[in-house]
């Protein structure tokens, strides 16, 4: 499960660009703070490598193992 915290995300899109699996998609719409918060639209492609969480400059991302895989 991937969570993007809307209160912390600044919309830099480093996650969108650097996820090796291209899981995230740039958002077209603005949130209430005027930020394009990306969404993990292709989550099933995620390999849980954790790179996005390590790179997100605003600590907005959490990648969890899926419960059924545990």
């Amino acid at each position, binding site marked *: *499960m991937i969570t993007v*915290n809307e209160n912390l995300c600044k919309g830099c*899109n480093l996650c969108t660009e650097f996820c090796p699996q291209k899981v995230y998609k740039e958002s077209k719409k603005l949130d209430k703070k005027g930020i394009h918060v990306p969404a993990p639209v292709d989550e099933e492609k995620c390999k849980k490598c954790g790179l996005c969480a*390590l*790179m*997100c*400059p605003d600590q907005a*991302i959490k990648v969890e193992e899926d419960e059924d895989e545990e």
Partner: protein
Amino acid sequence: MVKGESPFMKYLRRDRLPTIFCAGCGNGIVMNTFFNGMEMAEVDFDNLILVSGIGCSSRIPGYVACDSLHTTHGRPISFATGIKLANPEHDVAVFSGDGDAAAIGGNHLIHGARRNIDITVICINNSIYGMTGGQISPTSPKGSYGTTAPYGALERPFSLADLVTAAGGTYVARWTTAHPVQLSKAIKYGLQNKGFSFIEVISQCPTYYGRKNKLRSPIDMLNWMKESSINKRRADKMEEEELQGKIIVGEFQKKPEPEFAEKLCKLLEEQCVTGKPTAIRSAYQED
């Protein structure tokens, strides 16, 4: 850990978030890699003291939920030296910018390295003075633009990793924010090294460096770092012209040597009645 929360949130003062850093600034990536390296080195978070000078990068310790000191511009290594000598049992790390560490604080940097005092300096080198609006720093590449160099910088930049190696640092590495895994490992080794460790992080300031140097977005800046990086082992075999515009990454020094605080403690043991640095809970000691 709260569900859906970053694994690094437990180290942060969440009431101060989001940070003041611009969107996509490298400072936040360096924070993550520091926590990652700290976990790998098994440093006790409660025993850690972070010290910084002045600059955007120097704001980092203020967001971290451990003891910290936000000091004057260029002086964090001096304050860190004081902390370490008052109680050598603490793990002490410094966050400093290229301006902070290499311009106003250049002397403290070389003498900290020369002494080989056991502190870990993380130098966030964004090649510019970010906080004050984009002036040229001692690491701005020749020809790069800044508010103080509208026609491009004329001087040659310092290679900080080489400078600190020459000055006597005992663990020295350079990585970029586009290499967060390697950078975390270097921070781990830096924290483990008993001596002066220097981790230079080539980082992005999209707001000032990027905007003035045709690298408008943080994505452009990270792609530039990725494409220009070349490992030191390979670079050592290449000619100077081939290395024009390249960022040499990897380990520059890994050579244990006697450490300063230990030498001082030994001297105290031999020459002084208490046998210990005076700030170690001396008020509670009977003698």
